[in-house]
């Protein structure tokens, strides 16, 4: 998939990223993510992006956005798929095991702990107010996640020409509008946009 480079790995899109760290370092990174990523999936995805793309430099932001898209294709939770995918790309089975254990053991235990606390506190109005604030903050995290993924995908589209960029933006807004108006299952939206964008990419490659 990638050539080696004096300073690291060259991604298919031509970005240079660092070679993955040792499995032990990966395990520690995932343990930290699994422990500190309060705010559900949005908080967790943001921390994965921060740790691996921004701080680590082991993946490009485009690779991350495309990996997230690949994770939508299969069944189950996308974040669990993402951790397995990244771990496997870094260090095969050992990397995938480190990612899954590091992410899920602490977060599973914290989930149980929060459940125990919540079961005792949920009748207090203060708990409801605090939760309302947390959920609002999580919406802020979600928008950040969307922007971090939109930027590289739009930039990659623009590299193929202004037409592809316009198509990408039109697809984003069309999907949003269709979702609001029709409320289809999410998968029923993903597939048509994937097919449309695939066809246009093939057409563009033929014409170029």
């Amino acid at each position, binding site marked *: 998939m990638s050539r080696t480079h004096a300073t690291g790995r060259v991604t298919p899109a031509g970005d240079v990223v660092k070679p993955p760290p040792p499995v032990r370092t990966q395990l520690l990174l995932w343990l930290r993510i699994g422990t500190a990523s309060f705010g559900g999936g949005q908080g967790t995805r943001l921390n994965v992006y921060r740790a691996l793309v921004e701080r680590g430099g082991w993946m490009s932001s485009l690779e991350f956005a495309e990996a997230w898209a690949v994770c939508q294709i299969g069944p*189950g*939770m996308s974040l669990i798929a993402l951790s397995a995918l990244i771990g496997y790309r870094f260090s095969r089975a050992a990397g995938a095991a480190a990612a899954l254990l590091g992410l899920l053991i602490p977060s599973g235990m914290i989930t149980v702990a929060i459940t125990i606390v919540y079961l005792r506190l949920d009748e207090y109005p203060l708990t409801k107010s605090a939760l309302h604030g947390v959920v609002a903050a999580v919406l802020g995290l979600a928008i950040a996640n969307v922007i971090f993924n939109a930027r590289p995908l739009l930039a990659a589209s623009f590299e193929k020409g202004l037409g592809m960029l316009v198509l990408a933006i039109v*697809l984003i807004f069309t999907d949003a509008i269709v979702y609001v108006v029709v409320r289809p299952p999410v998968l029923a939206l993903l597939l048509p946009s994937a097919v449309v964008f695939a066809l246009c990419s093939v057409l563009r490659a033929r014409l170029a």
Partner: protein
Amino acid sequence: MSRVSYVLLFLFMLKAQAISNNGIASLPSLHADLLGQGWATDSQFAGALVVGQLTPGPNGLWIVSLGYIVAGPLGAFLALCAATIPPMLVLPIDALYRRFGSLPGVEGFVRGIGLAVIGVSPLVLAQVLQGSGFDDWTAVIAAVAFVMVLSRRVPNIVVVALGAVAGVLIYR
């Protein structure tokens, strides 16, 4: 409430994960199965869903919370195992993607999915928020949290904690 069968609980959870591809999509199937068996109540489901929004890890870990409520620590563990199995299908999918990802059609297909997810995911979350009441303050807290994240100076955990503090100050 009737006695819980661990084997059946695991199978229900596995089925719900296998037929859904995000955290909340597994709700209808589990809701039908567990209420059908008389193992859980609506308010227990609601509690578990809230916990899933708070805790580290995917939102879908709400099923671990539910597993604990329904069947204790072993229930939580079984839920975690059930959640881990279906997503492993991503590994062969990714192998195919890495092999054929440079073909314009495959590259476009994956990027098209990525674009659709960008259009839809904030709306899915807003839908969840509607249930808990969306008002002007919600938008303000979300905007402040967003700016904090973009500044890259404030860790998530602090952003979420400040959200809780703001919630207490505003909504009490």
